[in-house]
């Protein structure tokens, strides 16, 4: 048992806006209290108390992440931690090793973490790494946007049979991979690239099943709805990173309007085109549309200047990035499912493109009115490492600080962005929403992201400083499942978190023709495909609906 006293509590779900409250913890949960007088006390005087952070989109485990680590040993040479009696060693400042990932997230006050893109065939790998990512509860999203079984089901002419088959495939994929959500990455575009064809638009028929990106996205959105998944489709739209892709993103939003959808790393999809064909911010138009569509959520994908690594299932995007920049390029096509690519990158303030991207991400976060629908992310490590969150929080909370960075950017950035005109500053409550309560709600996690009775006792306590970067850079305390993991900024205990999965309303079964198709063309036997329960030793299944 544990009582946290004297802290200023920010618990937006329960409408506590910075008042001094006691937080009572018994076993793994938050309780009403009172607790017996001999209960251990944490005095949070001068501190801010928030629910544990919830990371909605990060690349931390699995094939492409490890590919990224393998690709750049030079990122590890100067960034390492020695092991201690409690902690495992680790290295790499861009794509940290698994243990280090868990420790660093914990030190930032996070307790729940989702790996954003897992190809079904490599799901075991992701779970193996998540098992070695300590402290946090973890889950992963299953990549489906270029999956043959999905596309084959969508190709079914009869509507009822199409819906049934698709629901079977999606449920089967989620079950087989122990996934938490439907992830869509460049729907149809990755498959098209494997045929050495160009980029796809909403209505481009994609071989071999002649389904279109529009059919894939709307079909999966509907299936996610029908399965009552706690998190809707998690969508990385086509045309990532192209100037002018804002128009395409708006088209996609129109196509999906009315159904729930999460638009991930929206910054990468919100570019207007300058007169000369270059990058300009499309934040105003995107935010305007988005503000009027309460069915959508998004995460920002904020840019962090410095070296990092791009990694995505969007293989064609990575290839064109490689063609543009040269240097290292890793690619992995995954049979019947998707592709993936990894390219190291360095964002530089004196590059006009990077400066526009940097402004654009912040603009989105400042122009989207409802903090419950836009979340802090760097699409780690694509736009920057998650360890930069404290800096980003300060940029959101402190306009003067933001402008001091703005002054260091490429001078022409003013012509293509509107960041200069935005005076909004995030409050601590809004920060609590965009880093924990909002993502928890968007993920349908009812016991996380708040401090009401019944919630998991996942609590972050930050020392109050005017300098918000300093404040959020290291939690004074992190309590996970009622256990004090971080004390005075140092990790005192480490253990395995839970694996978040789904309790689906239907059993995932492949229609006969799809199963036959799988057996004929996959190189893995049907019975060996499904991820066994051994890979999620501490499961927590979230009920759908």
């Amino acid at each position, binding site marked *: 048992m544990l009582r946290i006293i004297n802290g200023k509590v920010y618990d937006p779900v329960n409408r506590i806006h910075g008042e001094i409250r006691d937080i009572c913890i018994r076993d793994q949960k938050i309780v009403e209290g009172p607790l017996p007088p001999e209960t251990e006390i944490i005095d949070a005087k001068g501190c801010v108390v928030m629910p544990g952070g919830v990371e909605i989109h990060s690349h931390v485990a699995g094939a492409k992440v490890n590919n990224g680590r393998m690709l750049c040993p030079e990122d590890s040479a100067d960034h390492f931690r020695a092991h201690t009696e409690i902690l495992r060693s680790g290295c790499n400042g861009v794509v940290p090793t698994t243990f280090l990932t868990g420790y660093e997230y914990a030190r930032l006050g996070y307790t729940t973490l989702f790996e954003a893109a897992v190809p079904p065939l490599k799901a075991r790998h992701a779970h193996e790494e998540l098992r070695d990512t300590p402290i946090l509860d973890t889950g992963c999203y299953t990549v489906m946007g270029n999956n043959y079984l999905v596309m084959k089901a969508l190709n079914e002419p009869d509507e009822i049979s199409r819906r049934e088959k698709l629901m079977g495939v999606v449920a089967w994929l989620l079950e087989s991979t122990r996934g938490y959500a439907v992830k869509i990455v460049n729907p149809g575009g990755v498959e098209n690239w494997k045929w050495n064809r160009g980029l796809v638009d909403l209505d481009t028929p994609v071989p071999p099943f002649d389904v279109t990106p529009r059919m894939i996205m709307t079909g999966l959105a509907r299936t996610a709805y029908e399965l009552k998944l706690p998190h809707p489709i998690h969508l990385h739209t086509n045309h990532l990173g192209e100037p002018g892709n804002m128009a395409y993103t708006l088209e996609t939003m129109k196509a999906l309007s009315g159904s729930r959808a999460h638009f991930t790393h929206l910054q990468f999809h919100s570019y207007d085109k300058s007169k000369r064909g270059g990058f300009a911010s499309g934040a105003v138009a995107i935010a305007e549309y988005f503000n009027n569509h309460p069915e959508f959520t998004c995460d920002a994908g904020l840019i962090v200047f410095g070296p990092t690594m791009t990694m995505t299932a969007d293989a064609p995007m990575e290839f064109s990035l490689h063609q543009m920049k040269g240097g290292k390029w890793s690619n*992995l096509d995954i049979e019947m499912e998707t592709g993936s690519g990894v390219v190291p990158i360095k964002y530089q303030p004196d590059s006009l493109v990077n400066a526009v991207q940097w402004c654009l991400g912040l603009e989105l976060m400042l122009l989207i009115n409802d903090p419950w629908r836009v979340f802090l992310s760097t699409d780690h490590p694509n736009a920057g490492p998650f360890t930069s969150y404290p800096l980003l929080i300060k940029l959101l909370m402190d306009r003067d600080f933001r402008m001091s960075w703005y002054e260091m950017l490429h001078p022409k950035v003013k012509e293509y962005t509107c960041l200069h005109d935005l005076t909004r500053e995030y409050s601590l409550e809004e920060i609590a929403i965009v880093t924990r309560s909002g993502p928890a709600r968007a993920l349908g996690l009812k016991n996380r992201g708040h401090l009401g009775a019944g919630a998991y006792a996942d609590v972050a306590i930050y020392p109050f400083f005017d300098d918000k970067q300093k404040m959020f850079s290291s939690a004074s305390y992190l309590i996970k499942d009622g256990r004090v993991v971080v004390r005075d900024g140092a990790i005192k205990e480490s253990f395995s978190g839970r694996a978040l999965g789904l309790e689906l309303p239907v059993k995932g079964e492949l229609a006969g023709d799809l199963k036959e198709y799988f057996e004929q063309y996959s190189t893995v036997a049907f019975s060996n495909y499904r991820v066994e329960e051994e890979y999620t030793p501490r499961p927590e299944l979230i009920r759908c609906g």
Partner: protein
Amino acid sequence: MDQELKVHSDVICTFCGCLCDDIEVEVVDNRISKVKKACMIGRNKLMHAQSNNPDITIAGKPTSLDAAINEAVNILTNARFPLVYGLSSTTTEAQREMVEIAEILNATIDNPSSYCHGPGLMARQQVGLSSCTLGEVKNRADLVIFWGCNPLESHVRHLTRYSVSAKGMFHPEGRKSRKIVSIDIRPTPTTKSSDWFIQVTPGNTFEIATLLRALVANNPIGKGDDALIAGVAVSKWRELAEMIRGCKYGVIFFGLGVTQCRGRDINVEQLAVLVSEINNHTRFYAMAMRGHGNVAGGNQVMTWQTGFPLAVNFSRGYPRYNPGEFSVIGLLARKEVDAALIVATDPGAHLPADTGDHLKNIPVIYLEPHNNPTTEWATVVIPVAQAGVAASGTYYRMDNVPLRVKKIVDSDHLSDEEVLKRIKERITHAQNY
């Protein structure tokens, strides 16, 4: 009494990097009695999996498991520069324990890839690699190049399951719809079954890859069409370059003939750049013909836990990487290690004799299911339940697809993972008190 017959289907053969997962195994009274669908090597391995187990020994004398583990802990905790080595033929679950033991001991850890396909990993660290899973080869590839490898003898079912005669989605005719090219220094069964065998002089992989890069990209070269590169006329290489540019989905499988011939990692580096540049014209990929069943998994585990796929040193408490300096051959050749924990590999058979000899002069703890050259001289021998036969766990196929290998019979022995966990716990205990 009737004998109990159990038939296991979709069993995964753990012998080579193919990890064929369609094997049928019959077990009668806990003995494997029949193996179907596997290749000859795989069948033999499975049929003999339960025989010829070594005894638990210290210095050749039989002892108890407890005493052997204590002796192992004693040796490891007293060593001043210990080596943890192997990983290639056991589960990732065991490999994870090995990494942790190496870390607790501040030891050096390496796997056999450092003298097999490690150069390919080092090359990837310089330039990356465009690759794909084996199912993409089966379903799509219309051009397959075997370079410095002979899968018909080393990865027997590779050709039928994945790369040559497999009937894929877009190649329903299998063999007929693919062009098969092999590049090797001598004729092999694989080269004989290819459409085009390019016989080259030894040690010239780098020159070939260099020339192909120039020909594919139309870069100037300082040689005429009749000049010989690796013993083959430039004009012939130009034909190959044309074939490469003209295919729809091409794959190079490269073997030790590429990674271990003169130049080693720079051969693969040049090959990887070649493959990358071909993608300016068409889709093209390369894949290493990984040998031992889970050598790929060993690289994966080491990378997610330490940041590096092989040759990692923990002397300073954190991982550092440098093949050559911290890889097994260099360490042994320079006689730098003073004790070794070896799991799931046979250094007595695989390492060059002169380097391997140092192991005979230092205390060696050896976990292994079968008698082999190393069990003859290792200081502490602990027999284990063989992964994929008497122990389950994760293996990574040569294309890094993870599969769960099954336990189909019971063994008297613990698995690698279980023995390593006990060793780890006692080391931790010994260091704390």
